[in-house]
């Protein structure tokens, strides 16, 4: 393949290289990976290649270190998979700080981290928070360079599974796919500006950690966590523990001692609107 372009994606102390044979790939990349300022020394750990085959039908093909790992005729499904593979490579090899499976939000130059595994409704909750005026950074990764409280969030579109439309349709205009809304077969990629036009990215110190749990028809259960409970929850969302000295346990407890952690179970946004505003109004 003759390369028509390349891009380096840097995050969490690592970098991946993307090469492609068609300028049309630029548009896909622009729609899934937003520029992040990287102040760390990044190691190149993977080489992706993207090819667009035109004949007989247009097909997008993804290669990792020369092995084909995915292909699709749907450019949005392809974009989602590419995003997932890039994220995995960056996360799997990260070793110079703590990398959490978490959403990153901001308010008045302070960071709000929302850790949570798959299926906890993290992205849906994050989209709602953006609609309430908080800055969106990421719905997937938050990274703390070693011994810092500075949130480096992986800036990308909100990746919302199709059922979340049921609860977000009053906040997001799903009727006009375009630059800010990419509709895949099973999920949507949403630019935060579709929800909040003056959203901006920064890397603030973490000020609050929220652990939301969506549970249909439940009453609101709100719990201020002790530092030990916060540490326990954080350990379960630390992606790169195996790469870190002491599995990151010391760093986790350092963070948990300093930062307020709150866990809540909810079934509707109306239940949590006031308590969250009450916490954040002190900023």
């Amino acid at each position, binding site marked *: 393949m003759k390369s028509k372009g390349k891009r380096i994606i840097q995050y969490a102390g690592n970098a991946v290289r993307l090469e492609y044979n068609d300028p049309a790939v630029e548009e896909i990349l622009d729609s899934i990976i937003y520029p992040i300022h990287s102040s760390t020394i990044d190691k190149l750990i993977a080489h992706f290649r993207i090819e667009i085959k035109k004949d007989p039908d247009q097909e997008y093909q993804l290669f990792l270190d020369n092995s084909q790992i995915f292909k699709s005729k749907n450019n949005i499904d392809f974009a989602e998979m590419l995003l997932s593979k890039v994220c995995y490579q960056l996360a799997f090899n990260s070793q110079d700080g703590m990398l959490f499976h978490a959403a990153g939000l901001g308010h008045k130059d302070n960071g709000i981290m929302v850790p949570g595994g798959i299926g906890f409704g993290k992205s849906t909750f994050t989209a709602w928070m953006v609609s309430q005026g908080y800055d969106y950074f990421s719905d997937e990764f938050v990274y703390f360079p070693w011994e810092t409280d500075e949130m480096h969030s992986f800036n990308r579109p909100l990746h919302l599974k199709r059922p979340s439309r049921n609860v977000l349709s009053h906040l997001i205009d799903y009727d006009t796919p375009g630059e800010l809304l990419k509709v895949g077969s099973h999920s949507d990629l949403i630019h935060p500006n579709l929800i909040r036009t003056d959203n901006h990215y920064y890397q603030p110190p973490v000020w609050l950690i929220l652990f939301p749990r969506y549970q249909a028809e439940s009453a609101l259960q709100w719990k201020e966590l002790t*530092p030990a409970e916060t540490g326990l929850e954080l350990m379960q969302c630390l992606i790169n523990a195996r790469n870190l000295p002491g599995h990151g346990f010391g760093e986790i407890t350092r963070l948990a001692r300093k930062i307020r952690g709150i866990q809540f179970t909810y079934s509707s946004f109306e239940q949590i609107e006031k308590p969250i505003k009450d916490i954040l109004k002190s900023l």
Partner: protein
Amino acid sequence: MEDKKPLRNQDFRLEKMDDELLLFNPKSTNILYLNETASLIWQLCDGQRSVHDMVSLLTETFPEAGASIKKDVEDTIALFKKNGAISLA
């Protein structure tokens, strides 16, 4: 159970956070959260005291807790054992 003498597994790293503990075993990556009561019981797992001794000591110290202490101790010891945090001699 009452005659058994629990001994802490030294592989676990401990972080005291206020009156609670987090225990982490880097070998198994197992992590345990201990509330105030469980933290006290953990500190008594020295391989010298039996479970019966622990119940007696805690009943003396916290008479208001009364009958629930025996069950709390036994449940907590069972949790420690299940997670490999202690051995029982």
